[in-house]
């Protein structure tokens, strides 16, 4: 059975290479038959990889432990749901999963009507299939063929690494059949963690499509915004999945890992954040190209950067080059990934330079006070955050290589440096909405900025007066100078501007058509999904910002060892003092390979009993790994969050860690609004698309 899967994998590899070459040759030599053949080959690859996935799922569910991968990630005691999701539980399976998703996206693009994209499509096939071929090659064991020759050439280290790669084949068979497998990593046995990798992968592979179209546009010299308009929805959906993946990861870290936080600037978290930053910059910057035919080179740079960061992020996560909680085993994968990234990046940049003459701006920047200029500044900020994140992530490797000393770059660095940059972005998020294209009139701009600025300053001062006297550190120093209430003021500023935009639109529609306000709002969304979807996303971002500021600066934590009947107190900055009394410990039902213990705490506030909390402690026997699952009491204002860290004498005494996380739930609410906004913005609307296409006609911005 496993052999079927392996053969499917090998065939997929061969066909994807064929598709890439055939499409390239067919495009260069004007041979439509060859291009069609490439297209069919690409679709066949999708089918073959689907077959491979089905086979692997069958092996997982039926518990075929003779297959190495199944023995690694599954065991008899696991519920069937986890047996299925173990597909992406470790290196080999997750690479197959990644490849499969890539082939689905690549195939879906080909199934669309080729129409006006006929010239672009062959190159799209080249890029997508070449990327796919690389990923499939990693798991198909072909690189091990190089091990022999390299070994005899004396390059034994590399030869060994390459030979090891045989085990990254998901269908690799052991010489015997183990009685049972290792089982899925306990960290992954949670439904939040089940969706998180697929979401991230969908985001990653999704961004390959706009990149492929960008390269196609360069190759065919069709560098107008055809490729942008064609891929706009793909980009938005890829971006949505990536955002959801990041939010889900944070939510899972918060609700399952039990350290009281949601983002630790871990190298693998950063690896997923970096393409998101570049992708968001790209998403905004292409609006300028659509509207004004400017920044064509810049957009190319951004999408090449995003794609490279996607592959780089995959490399970071899987190669173990920077040790992290997520580290997979070290193998020959690392150097191969680096090689692939170098090749693709260099080739893209060379192509870009060669085609610079096709990327002339159609217009010039009219004024520093314009939406174009604001978008540029916003791009700069995103790239600054990207640089800081990138630098902080690779610094340990760099310092070890260059200075011989290992350094750790932890959360304080990232928080201190990126914090103010994000705050500046929120300010721009507000200001940009008021900036017209081309040129702003200073008086009108000042008039529009007046009330939001007043609101922001008022909130800053009022919060300060009410007692929020905390100050944030100036990055790199120990001086506390930035008042936290200012951050709330900035969020208010951006929120007021965005809400006013909704209000003005509703009022205008109401006055001109006589519709009621709610119906006016509905029509706004109906007729201008891109704009109002975008505004909704911004509101989601502001809500997330509220949650981040609250938890970052006002989190309270305490730890105590309690005997049964004793209490610990924790004081929330917003709602007063909680008292938690330890009632007892008990064993809870759990799957066979887990020891689950639950603690019971009675919560009271101001003497009044308000309920119970039950944190659990799961001990996974095969892996000898504990997980402390928190109990949470949540509201819009804050979370009361408790974990049971350990106990003695069968529960006579137990150690508890309690946190109060102010405003943390605004993160998740903001996330939902964010997703809703993206869905609105991506919703197809032929009429709107036509209007935007007209805006893209030559001589774009036409004074009446």
């Amino acid at each position: 059975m496993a052999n079927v899967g392996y053969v499917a994998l090998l065939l997929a590899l061969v066909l994807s290479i064929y598709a890439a070459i055939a499409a390239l040759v067919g495009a260069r030599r004007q041979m439509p038959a060859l291009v069609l053949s490439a297209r069919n080959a690409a679709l066949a690859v999708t089918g073959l990889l689907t077959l491979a996935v089905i086979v692997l799922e069958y092996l997982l569910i039926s518990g075929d432990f003779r297959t190495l991968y199944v023995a690694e990630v599954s065991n008899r005691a696991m519920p069937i749901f986890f047996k299925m999701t173990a597909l992406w539980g470790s290196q080999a399976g997750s690479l197959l999963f990644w490849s499969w998703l890539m082939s689905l996206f690549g195939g879906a693009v080909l199934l669309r009507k080729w129409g006006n994209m006929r010239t672009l499509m062959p190159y799209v096939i080249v890029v997508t299939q070449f990327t796919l071929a690389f990923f499939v090659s990693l798991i198909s064991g072909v690189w091990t063929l190089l091990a022999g020759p390299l070994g005899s050439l004396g390059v034994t280290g590399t030869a060994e690494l390459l030979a090891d790669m045989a085990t990254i084949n998901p269908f690799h068979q052991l010489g015997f059949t183990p009685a049972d497998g290792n089982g899925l990593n306990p960290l992954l046995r949670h439904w939040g963690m089940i969706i998180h990798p697929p979401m991230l992968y969908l985001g990653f592979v999704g961004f390959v499509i706009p990149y492929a179209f960008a390269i196609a546009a360069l190759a065919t010299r069709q560098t107008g915004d055809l490729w942008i308009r064609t891929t706009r929805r793909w980009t938005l959906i890829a971006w949505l999945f990536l955002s959801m993946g990041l939010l889900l990861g944070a939510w899972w870290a918060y609700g399952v890992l039990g350290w009281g936080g949601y983002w630790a600037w871990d190298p693998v978290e950063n690896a997923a954040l970096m393409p998101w930053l570049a992708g968001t910059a790209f998403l905004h910057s292409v609006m300028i190209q659509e509207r004004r035919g400017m920044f064509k080179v810049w957009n190319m740079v951004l999408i090449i950067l995003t794609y490279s960061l996607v592959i780089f992020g995959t490399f970071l996560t899987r190669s173990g080059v920077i040790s992290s909680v997520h580290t997979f085993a070290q193998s020959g994968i690392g150097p191969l990934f680096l090689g692939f990234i170098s090749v693709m990046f260099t080739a893209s940049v060379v192509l870009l330079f060669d085609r610079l003459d096709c990327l002339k701006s159609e217009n010039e920047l009219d004024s520093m006070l314009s939406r174009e200029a604001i978008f540029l500044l916003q791009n700069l900020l995103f790239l600054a955050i990207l640089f800081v994140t990138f630098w902080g992530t690779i610094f340990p490797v760099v310092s070890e290589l260059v200075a011989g000393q290992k350094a750790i770059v932890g959360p304080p660095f990232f928080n201190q440096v990126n914090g103010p940059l994000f705050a500046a972005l929120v300010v721009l998020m507000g200001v940009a909405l008021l900036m017209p294209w081309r040129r702003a009139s200073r008086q009108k701009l000042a008039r529009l900025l007046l009330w939001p600025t007043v609101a922001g300053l008022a909130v800053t001062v009022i919060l300060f007066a009410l007692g929020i006297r905390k100050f944030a550190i100036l990055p790199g120093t120990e001086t506390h100078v930035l008042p936290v209430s200012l951050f709330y003021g900035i969020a208010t500023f951006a929120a007021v501007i965005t809400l006013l935009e909704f209000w003005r639109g509703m009022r205008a529609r109401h006055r001109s058509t006589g519709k009621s306000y709610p119906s006016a709002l509905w029509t706004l969304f109906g007729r201008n999904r891109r704009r109002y979807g975008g505004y909704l996303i911004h509101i989601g971002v502001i809500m997330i910002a509220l949650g981040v500021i609250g938890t970052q600066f006002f989190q309270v934590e305490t730890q105590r060892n309690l005997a049964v009947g004793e209490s610990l107190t924790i004081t929330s900055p917003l709602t007063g003092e909680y008292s938690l009394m330890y009632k007892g410990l008990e064993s809870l039902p759990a799957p066979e390979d887990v020891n689950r213990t639950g603690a019971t705490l009675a919560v009271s506030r101001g003497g009044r009993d308000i309920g119970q909390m039950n944190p659990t402690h799961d001990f996974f026997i095969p892996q000898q790994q504990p997980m402390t699952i928190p109990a949470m009491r949540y509201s819009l204002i804050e979370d009361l969050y408790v974990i049971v860290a350990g106990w003695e004498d069968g529960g006579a005494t137990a150690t508890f860690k309690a946190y109060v996380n102010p405003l943390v739930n605004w993160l998740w609410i903001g996330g939902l609004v964010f997703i809703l906004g993206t869905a609105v913005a991506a919703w197809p609307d032929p009429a709107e698309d036509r209007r935007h296409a007209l805006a893209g006609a030559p001589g774009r911005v036409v004074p009446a």
Partner: protein
Amino acid sequence: MNKKKHIHLWSFIVLATLAVSLAMPALAQTPSVDEINAVAKKLSCPTCSGINVADCPTETCAQWRAKIGEMLAEGRSDQEILDYFAARYGDHVLQVPPKRGFFVLVWVLPVIAILAGLAWLAYLMRGWSRKTPPATEGYPQGAQEAEGGAVVATSGSPDESDLIEDEYLQRVQKDLEKLS
């Protein structure tokens, strides 16, 4: 008589000082778990990666927390404790590299990069900026334009018409204005 009183007085002072100084350590508060954790949070676990000493469940980190407790009881400051661990185990047990030698680059390079980016942006914008403003201002209020993508010159027209999105309605309005 005076000399005897002097001796008694001095003996009393010496004994009292001795007694108080012996009692001092006992007067120093034993630090609470939270105080220890506050310092432990600033240290990275030497064996695991990506976790700080306060959150780490290993035996090593438990011992380190005990050590931190001892040092806090002795009256040492947070920075002294951090320096102690860094000197003993290496700079990589700190959450952020110390600001000396090669490590300074981790802070300095982002600042340089951002300033360089701003400078480059300013240079580009200066190069692009037109010297003369265009003939019509074409400023729609609140960035809401008529949806043909055309920026409509609205100087002199009432505020509300700037906000109307429907291009057809906009044209009708303009035609009406021409007629009236």
